[in-house]
């Protein structure tokens, strides 16, 4: 029965293979078939995830275990991947992106993510991370005719490999000092930082650096805006949410014993706090200067990493998961609206392009406004409640100054999110931004995100209870 622990991952991998094979052998009209296969496999994986709840399945001698945290994150990945497939149905043919390849790579990346979150062994995590990375490098470059997309892929590949090297080097040192590669090895080796061998500390530092690269927190975020902006919009949705969610989950598992531990806290607590504050301010201040909407949202994605780090610092598992879910809905929603814009040839809509959108497309503009308000953390949206939970828990654990920094960073973010709203509602249209109509799948995604943002902002009751109960034993 334990082999069932592999079932959700297997379902996704099977879907990936099916999509790639359909694409390869049926040629021409197989795009829809590949997408269907992808959605079906995601659906199956979703069912399997639900079925595994509370069963505590494990495989590889516990190195792959479906604990509630892993299952919740898997559900998020499946949701996001489904959104991406649905968004791509109309987007891919329009921008000459191969839909079958997109679906296949997307599912492979998802499988990598699922492996990452369900392990507490560095080697398995690294395995998942590499599966994810290879697939996402290709995903970023799928829009072959667009130079920005190729640039994104190259940059992502170079920086990703660089980060991967740091990670491996750190792992090697860690293994050399302790002979073990479980997360617990670090935490159990000693209560005080003095008790950790210097080499182990250095190894851990390298590992964290590698992870920080992957989740794009400052000062390791330089690659992110270009990659997020250059990738095809549905892929951007995936890249801004899913790898980050997995990275934060790993960080939470690794760091929370170190940060809450009495001795190590003195080293890791302040260090990560500084990184968090730096990330929020760099992301938000840079976003303030952008004129292209997609790039602005790319920087906003970096800023949100900073808020998520606050949850990691306070060891607040439920808050982190709730924030990630809320963030998945609002960020996917915002980018989904961007995917509906089809400017001719330009890499992305600028603020001037969206001017007057409120008059010409009232519903679309209203949805984007709501997503932006949620990202800014204004009640009664999911974004507000997510910030409320994360920040209030951080204050309860004594990180008052960090939270003050976080809310001030949010204030900056309000300024640029509202810049987009200003353009849509308070300025007259200058150029004719054409909007893709009659894309029901995209509308469905926007609607679901809208629903999620409002539902989680007003009545998140059941989900919160589920998360809190699931993680009660873990964090």
């Amino acid at each position: 029965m334990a082999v069932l622990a592999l079932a959700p991952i297997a379902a996704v991998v099977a879907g990936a293979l099916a999509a790639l094979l359909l694409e390869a052998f049926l040629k021409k009209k197989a795009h829809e078939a590949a997408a269907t296969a992808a959605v079906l496999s995601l659906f199956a994986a979703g069912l399997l995830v639900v079925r595994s709840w509370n069963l505590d399945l494990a495989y590889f001698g516990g190195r792959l275990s479906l604990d509630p945290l892993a299952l919740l994150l898997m559900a998020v990945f499946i949701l996001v991947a489904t959104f991406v497939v649905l968004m791509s149905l109309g987007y891919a043919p329009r921008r000459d992106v191969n839909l079958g390849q997109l679906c296949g790579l997307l599912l492979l990346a998802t499988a990598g993510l699922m492996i990452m979150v369900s392990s507490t062994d560095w080697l398995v995590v690294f395995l998942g991370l590499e599966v994810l990375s290879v697939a996402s490098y290709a995903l970023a470059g799928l829009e072959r005719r667009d130079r920005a997309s190729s640039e994104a892929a190259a940059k992502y590949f170079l920086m990703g490999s660089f980060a991967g090297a740091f990670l491996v080097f750190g792992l090697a040192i860690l293994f050399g000092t302790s002979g073990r590669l479980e997360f617990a090895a670090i935490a159990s080796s000693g209560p005080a930082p003095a008790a950790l061998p210097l080499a182990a500390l250095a190894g851990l530092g390298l590992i964290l650096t590698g992870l920080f690269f992957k989740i794009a927190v400052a000062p390791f975020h330089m690659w992110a805006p270009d990659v997020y902006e250059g990738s095809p919009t549905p892929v951007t949705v995936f890249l801004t949410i899913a790898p980050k969610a997995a990275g934060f989950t790993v960080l939470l598992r690794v760091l929370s014993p170190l940060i809450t531990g009495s001795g190590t806290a003195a080293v890791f607590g302040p260090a990560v706090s500084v990184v968090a504050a730096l990330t929020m301010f760099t992301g938000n201040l840079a976003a303030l200067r952008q004129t292209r909407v997609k790039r602005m949202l790319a920087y906003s994605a970096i800023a949100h990493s900073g808020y998520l780090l606050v949850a990691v610092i306070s060891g607040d598992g439920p808050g982190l998961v709730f924030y990630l879910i809320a963030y998945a809905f609002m960020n996917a929603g915002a980018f989904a609206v961007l995917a509906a814009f089809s400017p001719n040839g330009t890499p992305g809509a600028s603020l001037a392009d969206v001017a007057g959108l409120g008059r010409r497309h009232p519903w679309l503009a209203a949805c984007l406004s709501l997503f932006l308000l949620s990202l800014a953390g204004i009640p009664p949206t999911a974004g507000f409640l997510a910030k409320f939970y994360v920040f209030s828990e951080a204050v309860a654990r004594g990180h008052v100054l960090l939270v003050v920094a976080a809310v001030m960073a949010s204030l900056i973010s309000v300024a640029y999110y509202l810049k987009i709203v200003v353009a849509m509602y308070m300025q007259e249209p200058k150029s004719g931004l054409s909007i893709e109509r009659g894309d029901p799948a995209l509308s469905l995604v926007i609607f679901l995100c809208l629903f999620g943002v409002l539902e989680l902002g007003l009545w998140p009751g059941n989900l919160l209870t589920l998360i809190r109960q699931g993680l009660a034993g873990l964090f």
Partner: protein
Amino acid sequence: MSTIIAGLPLVTIVTFLPLAGALALAFVRSDSPRTVRAVALTVSGLTFLASLALLAGFNGSSSLPQFVERASWLGRGLDYHVGLDGISLFLVLLAAFLTPLALLSSWRAIEDRVKEFSIFMLVLETGMIGVFVSQNLFLFYVFWEAMLVPMYFLIGIWGGRRRIYATMKFVLFTMFGSLLMLVGIFVIYAAYHRATGSFSLTIGDLAAAPLPPGLQTWLFLAFALAFAIKVPLFPLHTWLPDAHVEAPTAGSVLLAAVLLKMGAYGFLRLGIPLFPQAAARFAPALSILAVIGIIYGGLMALAQKDMKSLVAYSSVSHMGLIMLAVFSLNFEAVEGALYQMLNHGLSTGALFLCVGILYERTHTRLIADYGGVAARMPVFSGLFLMAMLSSAGLPGLNGFVGEILCFFGIFTANKVLAALAVSTAILSAAYLLWLYRRVMNGPLKDPDDDRLRDLDRRELAVLVPVIVLTVFMGLFPGTILRKMDASVARTIEALRTRPAVAATMNPAGLATSEAARVTGSER
């Protein structure tokens, strides 16, 4: 009849009826502005009628929140908990009374995107009323922040030339304060949990478990900043002239009449009850800022060339008086402040409506462009004069009652400040009457200008109710003050004698406050 009303969740109805109307409006065809306007006016009118039922059923002898409705919402103390006491009752009525008038006043002024305008106005009404009825700090914050959004759109879409600058400044200033208040809420939430072991953000619970003085200082400062920006207290007032001048008439009316009151209300509802020692400690400093605001606002008003910014600076001055009265921390002053909040809402609302009526005719707000208007618009000039005299505190009108009460209270607290504060009476008489003379009297600027016709029936329907109410409140203040007495007394009493009360009445209360002190020192 009364039993039927008693069974209804009246506060919820009054709060969310406008929101329901806004949702319904989203599905009305936007190419028929008449329907949209009619629906919006009906909904806000019904809301006002429902709020009258609250007034009728309100028991003035009780100081506790009435019409309380409570339901579990998010768990862990984040409940849906609404109710009204004597402090909130009339502010709810003020909001419910002015929204339909503001909507009616913009029937000709707003012709572009009428549907969106009406939706935002109704959402704003829900936000305003929600702030006043919340009995839970979380709910209070949700309404407080959510209300920014419709006001942001109202100024930004239908405002004047510099509307985008004004609306961004308004939002960022307000959010700066309220985000720090949010951190304060987190701290209270955590402190209460540590002290008692249970989660609560119910305002009554929090007030019953006083925090250690050291913590109070920081928290009071965080809350006071949010409220002082909203009031606005000098020197945090700079957003106000911009927002007021650029906002459309209806927006200015609600901004001045209701939104500014939220700051003062915040001090009364949260600042004083939750942090009594800190409030007493900072009262002198805040009083001095208030006095500076009174004089500065008055002098600035004298110097304005634009009618709207004149009224805006007069607001700074009048709100300064209200804040000075609040910080005098005695019964007369606080009751006077509360009464003056209503007066300022009505008289400044009326003044903005008057300026709007003139602007609709001539499309200029510069005082120098007017002269001799009284000859063409006798009815209007009479009502304008009434609104001014009410604002200046002429005996027989509402402003007089409020100011006298405020001065009595301020005088017992600090004679020097009282003497300085009296300048508000002189200054406001000066800038308002001078304004009247320049606009209404003298020769007509342009004798052939036939745009200056007198008020039509719609405009009368907007202005007359406000003026009638100012007269009523000037002649029969007792009817209103009596309903406030108990709640104001409780706020003040709590400030003076809380530790003793807690010790004699509730031994457990003492234990919790001890526990709070212990955890406070650990922090």
